[in-house]
């Protein structure tokens, strides 16, 4: 359904005011993947990894610098119109809707843009409003909608013309936990209705809960691909040790990374304290060597656990 072959995209930017210098920034560096019919495929990566650029090339908004991409067999450069007819695109955030119009008018407008016939419009709009849980609120102006309601309206707009493939670019970003849970259910429902979905997110639990397969993208390249279980097993055999500390600096992190058997070390700031997440190969018990390197630092709780998808993700995106 979706196929990307050695896809690249370079942006040109300039620096300086008087002596302007042109720079080439490689946002996507030759990525290849494919998504099968009815699959929910996740593109996972940190900010600036190239997820949105990839999606924008696939939905025909951006021309690739090189490489090829096809959606439902249509080339995204040569057959842009055919691709556009068959896809839906939803992005996260407050924008993308006409605030002064009602939700119903927004949907009618986009239904016209996608050539949904007049007879079918009313039925289809009712259907998508029901699906995203906005039935009964459709006559209200969008300016009065909450962030979660707007995002649900976005999804309704994206699937209004019943596309075979739906691209969701960080759809739950900025939505409160309950709203995000409802949205995830809506996304899961899309797949049960036969849609193929490409989802970008940097929420691990979301990708873990929703995606059939995931490609982890970092610095414009795919650094890992597989089912969530397979990605987790890529750090399998390993262990994760979490240590609460107070006042750890970069030099200590470098020392910890130098311990034999340590594969990745990250630090999460948590109010007054920090949480060290140390991934190890699991071949030997490393708690004591780790604590020895933290000598002189105030240490709180120490715990050991199985790796999660987030650990796999961190290991992949922090690998040199």
């Amino acid at each position: 359904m979706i196929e990307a072959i050695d896809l690249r995209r370079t942006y040109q930017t300039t620096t300086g005011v008087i002596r302007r210098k042109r720079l080439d920034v490689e946002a996507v560096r030759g990525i290849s993947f494919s998504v099968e019919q009815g699959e929910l495929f996740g593109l996972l990566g940190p900010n600036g990894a190239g997820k949105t650029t990839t999606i924008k090339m696939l939905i025909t908004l951006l021309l690739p610098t090189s490489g090829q991409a096809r959606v439902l067999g249509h080339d995204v450069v040569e057959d842009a119109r055919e691709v556009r007819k068959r896809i839906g695109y939803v992005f996260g955030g407050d924008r993308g809707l006409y605030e002064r119009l009602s939700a119903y008018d927004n949907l009618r407008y986009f239904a016209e843009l996608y050539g949904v016939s007049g007879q079918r419009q009313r039925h289809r709009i009712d259907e998508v409003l029901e699906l995203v849980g906005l039935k009964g609120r459709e006559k209200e102006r969008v300016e009065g909608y909450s962030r979660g309601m707007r995002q649900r309206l976005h999804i309704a707009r994206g699937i209004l013309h019943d596309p075979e493939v739906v691209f969701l670019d960080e759809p739950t970003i900025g939505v409160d936990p309950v709203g995000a849970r409802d949205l995830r259910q809506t996304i899961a429902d899309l797949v049960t209705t036969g849609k193929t979905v490409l989802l970008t997110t940097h929420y691990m639990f979301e990708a873990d809960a929703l995606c059939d397969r995931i490609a982890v993208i970092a610095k414009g390249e795919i650094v890992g691909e597989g089912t969530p279980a397979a990605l987790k097993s890529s750090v399998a055999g390993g262990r994760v040790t979490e240590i609460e500390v107070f006042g750890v600096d970069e030099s200590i992190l470098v020392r910890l990374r130098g311990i034999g058997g340590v594969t990745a070390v990250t630090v999460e700031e948590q109010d007054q304290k920090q949480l060290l997440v140390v991934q190890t190969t699991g071949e030997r018990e490393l708690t004591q060597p780790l604590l020895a390197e933290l000598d002189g630092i105030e240490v709180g709780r120490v715990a050991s656990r199985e790796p999660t998808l987030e650990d796999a993700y961190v290991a992949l995106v922090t690998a040199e």
Partner: protein
Amino acid sequence: MAAGLRLLGFAWLMHVKMMSRSAFDGLLAILWPLFFATVAFFMFRTGHGHSALGPIGLAAAVMGIWTATSVPASSALQRERWFGTLELLVVAPSNFALILLPITIAASTIGLYCVAGTLLWSRFLFGIHLTVVHPLFFALGLFASVVTIGSLGFLMAVSFVRSRRAWSIGAVLEYPIWLVCGFLVPVSLLPAWVRPISWALGPTWGMRAIREAAYGGAPLVPLLVCLALAGVYLALGVVMLRFFLDAARKHATLSLA
């Protein structure tokens, strides 16, 4: 064809609805032209007496259509960028010209508020009773003016597709068009080198058609020229739009806020 016309009509209705719902914009659209009309009335009453005020009332009304169109049209795409809808419109399978044109036509339609407001203003404040000799041609002249100004706005919107300061270009063009199109001063009084520019501008002919219809002249020719020029602007805009959209896809400038 039918689907295209339906899209044009529906999108126009939605954009008129949106533009009409801003109390601030609505108030400005009415008050702004009235302010200029008042200045023009006082100027011409002093210089030419009461008899000159009728044509000036009509000119002020058409000035209102242009005023209501120039800035919104030139910044139409930038506004869609602010809304976050530009990429969604581009990625829709419909011809983008059919999506953009209703926005600029809607802006010039809002200008009709100004026409009504200005004519009422001139009647009740300055005592100008406008008696239209050819009402049908008068209405057609107004329609043609709205279409040609909307189409000129479309051409401007297309031309500034990659400019984030497009609205200021529209603002800069507001007064020169009043002058060059002979709204206040007859084109024949303008320098010879300016006249070809006036003739290439649809509002010049729209204004002439309205005046001829109101005072019993021959409105048909200026009416047809006005509509023909609208067609030229549209054709040029459609060709340029394809080129600029491809450039925007290549240079990634669609989403720049």
